[in-house]
């Protein structure tokens, strides 16, 4: 046995290459004698070692190559997996990391008055928000924020509470401008951010609030035109997709896709802001003077049906008078009373059942069915013409006229004039009024309906009746909107929702106008006379029905007056409705003077020429100033164009308009030399309603009786974020609601959008039929 066989295998390490590696310094467990392949002694020379190394190197090379190939294959496989199989998924994931989508809010369209003055508009500003989950120390964060805000913007405790809420979104302050935003951003307060928002503003405060309506905090219309035009005003949001870096900055040359926002349409209403303001002032004065609970005054253009001013006022709990949030003139109904008699008369004349000269025997009471109707002022049995019946507002005479018509024809005319159906305005919550179907008329209905009891109308419906008579018997649809403007500035007229309807002939309309002029000249409506104009109109005094039972409430009346002017060529119509006046219940006493005031102002505002003829007279002694021809004019009151052209200039300073009845007695009140008060002289050209005087005449002075200020109320059940844009300078905002400016509605701390105003979806329905006693009265002029 060779001792070399017992020596340790010096090449054990080399042999192990490619196989299992053994630990160095550790003997093989396998006895040498049991080696499978004992190394022959001759292989231990040099040449044998080289041969073995080459084989080993080749093996290593093969292994290495194989490994490399496998690696390349694996990489290619992985690459194919990433770039082919998972391509879309990974590309999308990459886009998500780089691309940011930003919503571009569409601006809500404006609401303008008829001359383009904004009544409602949107303004962009910033809202300070916080993510309380990212704020470790709410107190410290609140201190940091408060240090940047104007003093007393919010209370510290309130802000700490907001920053401690278990939410990820807390609104801290609204209405922040760019400067303040920059200051707060510079402080780098963790968890505090800004978001851009639009806020809705009514520059004219409460003006036409009941028409314009409100929006909520999400800028959605909740009442009025804001609700009615919601879809058109809203517009379409845009979107910006761009590649952004980790810090949020746009990557130069990166992807950028912009879909611009489309602003909502702007709407031009028929409202005249100046007239609206004046009418608001006069209405509040009229309500205060009469002690009424509230009132409605509407002015419209008789030719187009456009509503120029619409004032809804009510008495507040503190005794002030303020604009209502709800559009009473359209959503509330009332029994019209005697103003409704024009329909009965017009129908009878149109149907040739009577003429203005037809004589009737009129006692002061009359039984219809089982009820007894009476005239308000007791009188002997009279022989009155139809004209006299209207001038004296006789209930008995009107009922007799209606009986000649029959209920079928009366109902047809009532509906033909627009009662019982909504107007073309289609205002949110608008009432159609209440008209009983013919088959539900009782035996007394032919007594109640002709005199305006037992039916209910809206104020706008009743004004439309007078517009129809003023417009030659053609009922023009009432309108609140003139046109709309898209975001490119293209203006489109708002189409009429209804077509004009001829209700009565122009001859009947003219006859009715002459009768209504008599009502103002010598009947119950004398207080509605407007100096310089011939006015056609009718008074109305109606009982208010019980809301929970049959019959009428004792002592509760609605006083009204509706009319138009100048009677010979009507331009404007006005209706005044006063709810439960206290100083007098009669429309001729409380509503007619308010009508006159509004008509005088409106006529002057639109520069409507005074009525020609007997109503324009000379006041100084004609013999000293005027030619013979002018003296003749002074005597007769008849003007001709030739006379005016010849004499206008020398006579101009001494001419005043005065009722014909005063023609013979020159009035000292119109002589400038004897008057102490300053006199504004207005030359009256023929003007269109679209071009009134650029500035309201200073005689309006509605501010003398301003709309009473609304009390500052806290209408919010829980504190909301203060709004710096609406901030009173020195008031804490968090828990105390801000006071609104005079004549504005109470608003919450979050702004007007969240005010407690009810939406205009309610309708007051007050009507009584078959009342036991009907006393529909008009008082003679006091």
């Amino acid at each position, binding site marked *: 046995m060779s001792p070399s066989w017992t020596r340790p295998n010096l090449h054990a390490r080399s042999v192990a290459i490619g196989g299992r590696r053994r630990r160095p310094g550790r003997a093989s467990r396998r006895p040498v004698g049991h080696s499978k392949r004992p190394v022959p002694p001759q292989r231990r020379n040099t040449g044998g070692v080289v041969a073995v190394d080459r084989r080993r190197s080749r093996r290593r090379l093969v292994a290495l190559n194989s490994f490399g190939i496998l690696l390349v294959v694996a990489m290619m496989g992985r690459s194919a997996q990433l770039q082919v199989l998972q391509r879309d998924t990974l590309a999308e994931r990459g886009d998500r990391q780089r691309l940011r989508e930003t919503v571009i809010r569409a601006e809500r369209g404006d609401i303008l008055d008829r001359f383009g003055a904004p009544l409602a508009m949107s303004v962009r500003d910033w809202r300070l928000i916080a993510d309380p989950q990212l704020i470790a120390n709410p107190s410290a964060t609140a201190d940091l924020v408060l240090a940047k805000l104007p003093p007393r913007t919010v209370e510290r405790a309130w802000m700490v509470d907001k920053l401690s809420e278990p939410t990820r979104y807390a609104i801290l302050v609204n209405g922040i401008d760019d400067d303040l935003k920059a200051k707060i951003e510079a402080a780098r307060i963790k968890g505090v951010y800004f978001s851009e928002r639009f806020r809705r503003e009514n520059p*004219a405060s409460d003006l036409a609030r009941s028409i314009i309506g409100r929006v909520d905090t999400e800028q959605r219309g909740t009442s009025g035109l804001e609700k009615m035009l919601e879809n058109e005003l809203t517009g379409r949001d845009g979107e910006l997709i761009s590649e952004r870096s980790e810090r949020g900055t746009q990557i130069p040359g990166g992807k950028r896709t912009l879909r611009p926002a489309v602003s909502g349409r702007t709407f031009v209403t028929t409202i005249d802001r100046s007239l609206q*303001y*004046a009418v608001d002032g006069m209405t509040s004065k009229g309500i205060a003077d009469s002690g009424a609970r509230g009132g409605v005054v509407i002015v419209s253009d008789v030719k187009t049906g456009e509503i120029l001013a619409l004032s809804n006022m009510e008495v507040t709990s503190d005794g002030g008078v303020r604009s209502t949030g709800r559009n009473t003139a359209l959503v509330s109904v009332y029994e019209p009373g005697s103003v409704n008699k024009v329909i009965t008369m017009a129908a009878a004349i149109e149907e040739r059942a009577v003429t203005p000269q037809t004589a009737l025997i009129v006692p002061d009471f009359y039984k219809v069915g089982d009820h007894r109707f009476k005239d308000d002022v007791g009188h002997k049995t009279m022989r009155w013409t139809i004209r006299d019946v209207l001038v004296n507002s006789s209930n008995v005479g009107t009922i007799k006229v209606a009986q000649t018509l029959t209920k079928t024809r009366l109902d047809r005319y009532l509906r033909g004039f627009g009662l019982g159906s909504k107007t073309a305005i289609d205002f949110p919550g608008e009432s159609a009024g209440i008209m009983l179907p013919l088959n539900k008329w009782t035996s007394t209905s032919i007594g109640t309906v002709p005199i305006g009891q037992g039916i209910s109308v809206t104020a706008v419906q009743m004004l439309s009746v007078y517009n129809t008579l003023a417009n030659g018997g053609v009922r023009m649809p009432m309108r609140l909107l003139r046109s709309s403007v898209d975001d490119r*500035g293209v203006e489109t007229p708002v189409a009429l929702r209804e077509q004009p309807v001829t209700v009565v002939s122009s001859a009947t309309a003219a006859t009715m106008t002459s009768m209504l002029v008599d009502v103002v000249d010598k009947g119950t409506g004398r207080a509605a006379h407007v100096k310089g104009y011939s006015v056609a109109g009718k008074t109305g005094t109606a009982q208010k029905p019980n809301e929970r039972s049959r019959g009428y409430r004792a002592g509760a009346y609605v006083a009204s007056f509706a009319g138009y002017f*100048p009677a010979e060529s009507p331009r404007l119509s006005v209706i005044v409705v006063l709810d439960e006046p206290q100083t007098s219940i009669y429309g001729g006493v409380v509503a007619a003077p308010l009508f006159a005031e509004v008509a005088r102002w409106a006529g002057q505002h639109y520069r409507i020429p005074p009525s020609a003829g007997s109503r324009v007279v000379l006041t100084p002694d004609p013999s000293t100033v005027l030619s013979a021809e002018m003296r003749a004019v002074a005597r007769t009151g008849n003007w001709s164009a030739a006379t005016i052209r010849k004499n*206008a200039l020398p006579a101009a300073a001494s001419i005043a308009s005065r009722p014909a009845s005063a023609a013979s007695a020159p009035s000292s009140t119109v002589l400038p030399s004897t008057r102490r*008060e300053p006199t504004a002289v207005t030359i009256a050209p023929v003007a269109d*309603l679209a071009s009134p005087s650029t500035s*309201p005449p200073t005689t309006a002075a509605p501010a003398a009786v301003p709309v009473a200020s609304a009390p500052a109320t806290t209408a919010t059940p829980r504190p909301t974020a203060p709004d710096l844009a609406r901030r009173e300078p020195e008031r804490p905002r968090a828990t105390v609601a801000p006071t609104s400016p005079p*004549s504005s509605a109470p608003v919450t701390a979050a702004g007007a959008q969240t005010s407690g105003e009810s939406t205009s979806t309610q309708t007051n329905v007050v009507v009584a039929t078959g009342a036991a006693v009907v006393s529909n009265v008009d008082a003679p002029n006091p």
Partner: protein
Amino acid sequence: MLLFGVVLIAFAAIAMHSQLASRQLRLNVLRTDVDAAEREHQRLRLTVAELDTPEQVVSSAYSLGLVGAAEVEFLPTASTMEPPTRTAGPTVPDLAGGR
């Protein structure tokens, strides 16, 4: 020569890219400025609208000592005595610049 050309092209590409980045940043700044200017425009428009309201005008007039006339007289002229004629209808208000 080829190497020089490659280097030149590389430098040109880098310069162009940096110029692009610079312009992009400038564009972003301008966009922000436009945004701010629009907000300011809206704010000023609101201020003008508030100052232009009848309530404000009347209040200012009274504070300046103006009073309402006690009496207003209409003086007939040639035009007022002719039969009233309506024009083509209300003109559309000029909305240019209204928004």
